[in-house]
Every structure is written in structure tokens, then in C-alpha cells.
């Protein structure tokens, strides 16, 4: 699962991109990362825990001549490495007074 934050100017140029990944790392007893069910003996847990809300904050500084940006925040759910879909998304356009 990925929380994806992007900002684009009015021409669609990307000004900012950041993401936070939620996933499990399975390791064998040597602590090498593994995929096989018979190899994995422990996990390192970077997932979203239940009964909780995680707060993720991002600071976006644009260039001094930026008049308009559109910020998109998307929560992607991946059923496997390849195929994912957006579960929730929020989009907002901001306008700035420039000097």
C-alpha cells in the first residue's frame, strides 16, 4: 500500500513527489529478505497497524514564481507487486500571490 503525494503546476509539470510505503519485510534466520513461505521466519513490520490512525506529514516548498499548484494525495492498494488501484484520493488547487 502506498500513500502518494504529488504537486503539479498549471501546465502539468511535476513540482513535488513523495510517497510512504506500507509493507512487510519477511526475513530468514540470517535476516536476509525472503519471499518463500518456508524461508520466512520473522517479519519486520512496516504495515498500517489496526485500530490506529497514522499521521503522515509532508512539507512542500515550491519555486518563488509558482502561482498555482494542484496537490493530489492518493492511497493506493496493491493486491500484488504489479496491480494496484486508488482506494481514496483528495485533490486541491492552491493559488499563491507572488512578489
Amino acid at each position: 500500500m502506498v500513500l502518494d503525494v504529488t504537486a503539479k503546476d498549471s501546465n502539468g509539470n511535476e513540482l513535488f513527489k513523495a510517497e510512504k510505503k506500507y509493507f512487510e519485510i519477511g526475513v530468514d534466520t540470517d535476516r536476509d529478505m525472503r519471499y518463500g513461505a518456508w524461508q520466512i521466519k520473522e517479519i519486520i513490520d512496516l504495515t498500517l497497524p489496526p485500530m490506529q490512525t497514522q499521521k503522515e506529514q509532508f512539507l512542500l516548498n515550491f519555486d518563488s514564481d509558482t502561482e498555482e499548484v494542484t496537490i493530489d494525495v492518493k492511497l493506493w492498494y496493491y493486491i500484488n507487486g504489479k496491480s494496484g488501484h486508488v482506494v481514496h484520493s483528495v485533490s486541491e488547487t492552491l493559488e499563491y500571490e507572488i512578489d
Partner: protein
Amino acid sequence: MKRKSWLIALCFASLTVMFAPQSCFAEKLANTIDELVKMYDDTKCWECHTDQHDEWKTSFHSNPINSSLGGIRNFIMIGLAKEWNTPLTKAQILKCLDCHAPVVNFASEKLAVQIAEMIVTANDKKGTPEAEAVTKELAKLNVGCTACHNIKATATAQGLRGKAVHGKIYSASGYGNDEHDTVEAVELKRSIFCMQCHGIYSAPDGEKIQCNTLSGSYQDAYNNLGGTETCQDCHMKDNKHNFPGGHDKEIVAEGLGLNVQITQYRHLPGQVETAKNQKAWVPSAVVTAFVENKAGHRIPDG
């Protein structure tokens, strides 16, 4: 001796009851897939319980070998053959199939090994008629009606209930009906029933298999923080048998909350190195996302 003749009498007495005659042969192990599937014959259940069948058919429980083919193949060809340097036996392949196809517990040693070899063929010769044929055979092995309502039904409380009796049907209420012999096993509606297969597995020899770790999170995080809903509350609403999970966009959306707050401001001039004009205010924003997990366990799993 006494016990034996009593059993034989019971077998004859129960010949009139639909499923009971099979219970006389429960100890026998099957030598072919067809024999095995017949031993735990779900097709009978489908005839009367069409709703449950149609729902179940859309769920991953209906095809749990072919949907995990590559992984199980790797266990056989890499895990057993190379890393462990251990012969392929029924006990070894059950380290996957005790969950992926519980009926294999009743396969003969020879058949269990044969099933494992079919898994390798289905994967390695994909696209050939040979692979197609074995894939079709493997599709007969699943987590079906009798896997849950018999084979695994009492396993979490065997001391109390004993082993599941072949031919009987276990349900949470155990309400009898004219069609079959139903036995109460209230654990079917408890989380522990699902956790047998949805969590870390201890094989009889002690080997730990971590195919998925979901029930650990259910117990240690969800229950621990006060969550009390069962797996069935969320995944079997109205006793429906389609078991929605990660492939169902609706339940995924229900399980995740996203609240975003975006605040706009201008950063002090001269503090943002990348800005073209170091004397100008810098257009800026702070994005705060609150991501909530409303499921009964970590997201994602595995």
C-alpha cells in the same frame, strides 16, 4: 473386539443416512485424486446449498492451489530439493497443503507426492496440454464445504470435541435437519477457526511456515487494542460464502480511511535554497494525511 463389532453395526445402521456410510472407510487413504475428492464429496453439498456454492465459487477458497502455484512449486523444487536437500514426502508437502488443500491429509503417501509433482508440472510446463490437464485435476482440490464443515471444524478444540467424524457436518448451531447429520461446533463462528490457516503455521515436526501472518496481527494488535469483531463478522456478513478480501474493492475501501488536510502558506525569503529568487516569499504547503486502518489486522498482509 467388542468395539469393532459395535462399529460395524453402526455402519450398517447408518446406511440409510446419506453421508454416514463413508464414515466406515474414513481411515482408508485415497490413491487417486478422484478417490480423494469422492471421500469428501462437496458436489453433494452444492446440489442443495446453491447460494453457498455460487458465492464460494467466486472466492479464493475455491482454487487455492492454482492461485499459489509458483510459490508451492518453489517450495518443492528450491526449498526441499536444494535448500533442505530433503526428499519430497507427504509430510513435507502438507507444510503447504494442510492449509491450501486440507483433504490431502487423506491422500496416500504416493498420491500426495504425485500431487506435488503435478504442481511442478502445472507451473513449469505452463501452456502445454500436459500442464492444462494437471491444472484441471489440481482445481478439484480446494478449501471447500467439507474442508471447513468437517476436516478443520473441530481441530482447534479437539480435546473437547474429538476429531471430526467423517460424514458428519459441523456447524456453529448444529441444528439438525432431515437431510444430514449436523453436529454443533460453535468454534466455526469464532476467529480461532479461521486463524488455523490465516497465520503462522507450526508443522507437526516444528517447522514454522510463514505464508501469511494475519492472525498474529489480529490477536496481538487488534484484540490487544480493544477490537472485538470476529473474522466472520467482517468477512462473512449474513453468513455469505464469498469471503471478500484484498481482491474486493468494496471491503478494501471500507477498511481504509483517509483524511487529508492541506494548508497553504509562504515560507520566509532566503530559507529555501532551491528557490530562484532568494529575496521573494516562497509558495509552500503542508500536507497532513491521516491514514486509518479499520480492518481487524495489519494492512497489507504478506
